[in-house]
């Protein structure tokens, strides 16, 4: 059977199983938005985009793919930043979008959990929790588009990891369709369960390489009634990190976020939103957004004022302000979000999400800045991120007039010099964005032989035919 015939037969089978709008031909204009990644840097190809509406339909698709030997790229909100959803095999791959599997199944206020289909958009999860006076704490810039299934598949982090952990810490149950079309059930909702291997932990962060997550049960938390947000200016990353330690102690470990923004990023925030106005007097090299949340009986304002008064005394802070209303707090956070928008407007650039021990954060930023200054004249570093988790986005903008091909060619070498620094510090080149296709080679390069062997064994235990997201995470 020719490849064309195989694809045509498979498409017929898909059309038979799914409704009209469930099957989009890979060459149709409607397919384009599923085939390129969020940054627009990469455009992929696939023979079809499939949009199942039920778990049963997902199983049927997987069986058809298995029969016609088609590979599957699961896709959530397609906001991933490592080309995890961008395949390039127009004859051998389908994109399976979970966007129509998007029902919140139930909320259990006593168990403090929510069950949802994998395709529910993160923001809808958060809104549903809030309607029940609870909090689903996962929070990231892409929350209006990314899906809970995608968050689980990438073990997403975000701004509230500090208090509530990564997605891994928030998942109490999973359900997934395995590459043979069977349904693995693990929606237990149990907080404690020591029966053997914990398979859901393997699926979390598996980036579509082991199976298709169709359902999730996540932890909810009491919604903090008091949220206090401060925007601060400091002399250095060193003082910022000392402030963080002091904040944990004085604020009874109630911090939910501690973000740093190198002042060089403010120009990007202004590019994202010309009305950007940091609430600081004077120029401070490091801006900090700090938030704490607590129940009504605890006076968060007193905690944060006590902390900041002491930090001032100790010379850790130059200037700052505490939000007097949620509107002001939102304006602080808008600066953090707008700087990401601003970078996107600058077009192609080098992005990282580096992770080191908290004690190494200032040293890492210093070394990266030095490396760029000495080896990449005209390139502009930007350092910001989740400093409370030791996670810094150290991005580098190319010179304004550089052609895209030249940027693309330089990117791996710029990355290599940054990754070397992190590797020397015993850190990670991927704090939260994952491996995908764009970092696969460096991932395998760093892996020890023992880890490589375990990776391969686990992959073949789940997916012996190599159907799941080939080219991502695992070597070809």
């Amino acid at each position, binding site marked *: 059977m020719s490849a064309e015939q195989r694809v045509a037969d498979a498409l017929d089978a898909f059309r038979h199983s799914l409704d009209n709008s469930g099957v989009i031909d890979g060459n149709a204009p409607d397919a384009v938005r599923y085939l390129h990644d969020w940054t627009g840097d990469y455009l992929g190809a696939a023979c079809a985009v499939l949009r199942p509406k039920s778990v049963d339909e997902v199983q049927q698709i997987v069986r058809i793919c298995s029969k016609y030997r088609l590979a599957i790229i699961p896709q959530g909100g397609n906001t991933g930043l490592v080309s995890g959803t961008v395949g390039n095999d127009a004859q051998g791959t389908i994109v399976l979008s979970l966007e129509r599997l998007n029902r919140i199944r139930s909320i259990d206020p006593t168990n403090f959990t929510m069950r949802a289909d994998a395709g529910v958009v993160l923001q809808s999860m958060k809104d549903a929790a809030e309607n029940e006076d609870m909090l689903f704490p996962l929070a990231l810039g892409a929350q209006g588009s990314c899906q809970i299934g995608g968050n689980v598949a990438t073990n997403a982090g975000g701004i509230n990891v500090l208090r509530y952990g990564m997605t891994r810490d928030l998942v109490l149950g999973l359900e997934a369709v395995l590459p043979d079309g069977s349904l693995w059930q693990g929606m237990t909702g149990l907080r404690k369960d020591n029966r053997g291997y914990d398979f859901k932990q393997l699926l979390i962060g598996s980036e579509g390489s082991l199976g298709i997550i169709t359902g999730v049960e996540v932890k909810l938390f009491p919604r903090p009634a008091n949220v206090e947000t401060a925007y601060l200016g400091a002399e250095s990353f060193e003082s910022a990190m000392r402030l963080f330690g002091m904040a944990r102690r004085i604020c009874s470990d109630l911090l939910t976020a501690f973000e740093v923004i190198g002042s060089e990023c403010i120009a990007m925030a202004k590019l994202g939103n010309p009305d950007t106005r940091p609430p600081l007097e004077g120029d401070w090299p490091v801006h900090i957004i700090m938030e704490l949340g607590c129940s009504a009986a605890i006076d968060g304002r007193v905690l944060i004022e006590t902390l900041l008064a002491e930090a001032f005394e100790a010379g850790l802070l130059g200037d700052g302000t505490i939000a007097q209303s*949620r509107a002001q707090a939102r304006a602080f956070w808008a600066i953090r979000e707008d700087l990401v928008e601003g970078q996107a407007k600058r077009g192609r650039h080098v992005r990282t999400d580096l992770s080191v021990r908290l004690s190494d954060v200032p040293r890492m930023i210093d070394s990266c800045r030095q490396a760029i200054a000495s080896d990449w004249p005209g390139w502009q570093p930007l350092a910001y991120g989740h400093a409370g988790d030791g996670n810094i986005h150290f991005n580098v903008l190319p010179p304004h007039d550089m052609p895209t091909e030249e940027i693309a060619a330089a990117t791996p070498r710029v990355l290599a010099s940054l990754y070397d620094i992190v590797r020397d510090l015993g850190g990670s080149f991927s704090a939260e964005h994952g491996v995908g296709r764009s970092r696969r080679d460096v991932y395998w390069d760093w892996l020890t032989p023992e880890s490589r062997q375990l990776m391969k064994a686990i992959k073949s235990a789940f997916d012996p035919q190599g159907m799941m997201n080939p080219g991502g995470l695992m070597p070809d």
Partner: protein
Amino acid sequence: MKVLVPVKRVVDANVKVRVKGDGSGVELANVKMAMNPFDEIAVEEAIRLKDAGKVEEIIVVSIGPAQAQETLRTALAMGADRAILVKTDETAEPLGVAKVLKGVVDAEKPGLVILGKQAIDDDANQTGQMLAALLGWAQGTFASKVEINGDKAKVTREVDGGLQTIDLKMPAIVTVDLRLNQPRYASLPNIMKAKKKPLDEKSAADFGADLKPRLKVVKTEEPGGRKAGVKVKDVAELVSSLKSAGVI
């Protein structure tokens, strides 16, 4: 000249308000409170007048529960000079508040009272007007621009379909609208300094007024949810469905 700025503690504008189970009002327990956003604009305007040398002292006053102190401290941190809390556990209603404010004006003798055009909790839009009537002062409501020249205040008002500029004889009442200014943040050093600024606690009786409710809330309910829309094929179908709905 002294300027008096009344400020109200209200549910934070970004909080989703819920009606109490028994319909007697809205849920205030465990809810984030903040200064009425229009009052923030009034405080900012007073500070700008002081910076411009038109005003010597800014007094902020709040009529409300003990926690309204926090709202006053915010105003002091922005730059007001001293504060008066008229403590009450009654629901503050426009007429009662206007009567207390008249008492405060009689005691403090400000040349100008600047306040929000309305509070975002009850949206009454009455207090400034009632106060002007009780005092017999000129009033400029919905101000988007305020200029003080000697004993005249020139106020640009946002009216339906445009702007109206009026001259007021001082002393006067100005109620402020959204476009007047962009309020400043309270800086950390100023938040600390504000803790030491004077804040007097008073009762309505100290100003010869009482706050007992003059209104009775009969019922509070959620606005009805919006009905789902329908899709029409073409203009003809649009027109016919508008007709059958009796809209045209």
